[in-house]
């Protein structure tokens, strides 16, 4: 039985769906926190994602190299990159604890980088409105991608860099991809539980109040500036971890792949399909879209026989049409937003009953 499941999981298509789903779930949940709950038009999601990826790939990697006495300066991202990372990987392979430490370090650096980006984004976010804010955030994301692509000392420029394999503690080869996918899935579940608890907390309710009526929230003593900044920092840190996990999973960083379409607009589409403001909906939307994308990608060559066009364009066409269809026919998404109860329904009712008795 167990072996059967394992064999099924080894299927590259299943792995691809799972890992895409897990990484994009983290990014989309962070987007939902900022857009769905706080009402900030975050069209620059890629900013924090790319910052996290750089944090894990270039900064945490350099820190590890420095700790082991390997060159960590400009050589790390230059032509020595492959050699240095090879040395690091050997060390990580021989010591599983070190490897786990490296994973935690990478994620921590990524979260800090993403959080810093969120803090920077809060500067326009408390001054600008709607379209102005959305496009300014979009511009921030593009700007960082351009710097990443052309400023070689940061993370290798257009050629990119290879990244230390912090998943070495689970082994190498096939098992590495399977186990790392499961670890990423586990982190995604933790992130889900975290944002869900945020949504049910007073903080989450304050965000929704701010989104629905800023003036009323202010009247009730909510500090709008503080709420926005906090949301952007938390969201940025989560998105940074998403970007970092993708870099760590693929074992390389290339700024070119962190573009606005994949890391801003796709998460937006996932969120809209699932249900803006509903974390469970986000899980559903991400699962559906990741499956469709992975299937198109996997059966590209087979598809070419049936349709006269390149399947790449089919993906764009399909996602475009889905976005339009959602906007037209089900703007609230598959699972519409519903009020988050601070406690379970049963508990609330029992408290209410005991209060009624007390009277």
């Amino acid at each position, binding site marked *: 039985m167990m072996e059967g499941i394992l064999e099924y999981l080894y299927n590259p298509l299943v792995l691809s769906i799972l890992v895409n789903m897990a990484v994009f779930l983290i990014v989309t949940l962070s987007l939902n926190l900022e857009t769905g709950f706080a009402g900030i038009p975050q069209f620059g999601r890629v900013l924090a994602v790319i910052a996290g990826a750089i944090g894990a790939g270039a900064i945490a990697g350099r820190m590890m190299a420095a700790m082991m006495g390997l060159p960590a300066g400009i050589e790390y991202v230059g032509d020595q990159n492959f050699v240095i990372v090879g040395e690091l990987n050997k060390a990580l392979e021989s010591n599983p604890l070190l490897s786990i430490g490296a994973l935690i370090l990478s994620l921590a650096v990524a979260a800090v980088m993403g959080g810093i980006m969120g803090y920077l984004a809060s500067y326009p976010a408390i001054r600008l409105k709607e379209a*102005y804010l959305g496009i*300014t955030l979009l511009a921030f994301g593009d700007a960082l991608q351009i*710097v990443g692509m052309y400023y070689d000392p940061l993370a290798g420029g257009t050629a990119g860099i290879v990244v230390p394999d912090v998943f070495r503690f689970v082994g190498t080869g096939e098992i590495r991809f399977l186990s790392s996918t499961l670890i990423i899935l586990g982190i995604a579940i933790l992130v889900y539980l975290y944002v869900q608890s945020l949504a049910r907390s007073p903080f989450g309710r304050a965000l929704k109040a701010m989104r629905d009526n800023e003036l009323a929230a202010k009247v009730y003593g909510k500090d709008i500036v503080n709420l926005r900044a906090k949301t952007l920092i938390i969201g940025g840190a989560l998105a940074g971890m998403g970007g970092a996990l993708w870099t760590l999973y693929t074992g390389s960083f290339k700024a070119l792949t962190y573009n606005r379409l994949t890391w801003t607009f796709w998460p937006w589409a996932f969120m809209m399909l699932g249900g803006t403001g509903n974390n469970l909906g986000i899980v559903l939307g991400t699962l559906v879209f990741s499956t469709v994308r992975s299937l198109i990608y996997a059966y590209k060559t087979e598809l070419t026989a049936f349709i006269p066009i*390149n399947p790449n364009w089919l993906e764009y*066409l399909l996602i475009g049409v889905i976005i*339009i269809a959602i*906007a037209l026919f089900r*703007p609230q998404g598959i699972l519409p937003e519903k009020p988050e109860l601070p406690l379970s329904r049963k508990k609330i009712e029992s408290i209410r009953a005991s209060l009624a008795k007390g009277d």
Partner: protein
Amino acid sequence: MQILAGPIVQILMTAIGFSGGLALAAAGITLIYMTTGTFNFAHASMTAWGFYIVFSLYKVLLGGNPYLYFPVAFIFSGLLGVITYLVVNRWLLKRGADMVTLMMSTLGVDLAFFAFINIFADYLTATYKVNTRLIVLTTEDIILGKIGTFPFKAITIISVVIVVGMALFFYLLLNRTKFGIAFRITVENPALASILGINTETIYLFAWFMGGAMAGLGGAILSLVISGTPTVGNTVIVPEFAASIVGGLYSIYGGLVGGFLIGLSQKLIINWLGSVLGGNIVVYEPIIPLLIMAATLLLYPEGLAGIDWRRIFSRSKSSRR
């Protein structure tokens, strides 16, 4: 570095052509935003279609003169705008959808149009055996004469003529015709306009047609100024957004001025920086419009059109007294 700093005339001419294309497209974004409240992401593909129409008709299908196909680009992208309105935007407006839904729906439209450009490019490659993935028409422009040793290209003049013509057209339309009055009322207060018997749908349809058409015409101009690939829309959309936002989103003229502000500064600043700091800096060119936009917005959160120019002028007059 000498090579960069040398042909300032040529750089200026390219910058003017580039700005003209940008200005038209940005004014199109503004036009659609001020009437329907929709920030149009599909402008990327509408510009790219204008670019591609000129390329395919001139270089592959018919030949002749690239300027012959400018009207085709204008009408084709205008029709894309009409399709977007009739199929998507109209229903969302009727339902009173929020800004984010309006924006995202145009992103869906953009992805579909983008797919069609690529399918068209594949078709051209398969049928006519031409490279449709890298398009260079900049060398095919008509040369009117010479400034010093540099060729004086027609697009420099034509782009300015088109932009001025468009500004004049809108000025006359909005201030001298009944339709213009109806248009302005609809922008100010759609509910009141429909009470007065103005068919707001006609106004929206006009805005989408002209908005798309200006994007197409901008793309046609850009095809003679920059080289491109099917993703050209994706590259120029950011300066287009920047120009529109800097212009203030509530004034067509603001969009046109914003286009020139962004386009000229992008091309001129990067060349100046290149001559000072070395040629390596040139790759950062796309960041310049973003910085200008960010700086403008942080000073004036509603763009240039949000500034009360009359007050500034009257204040400077009174201070002179």
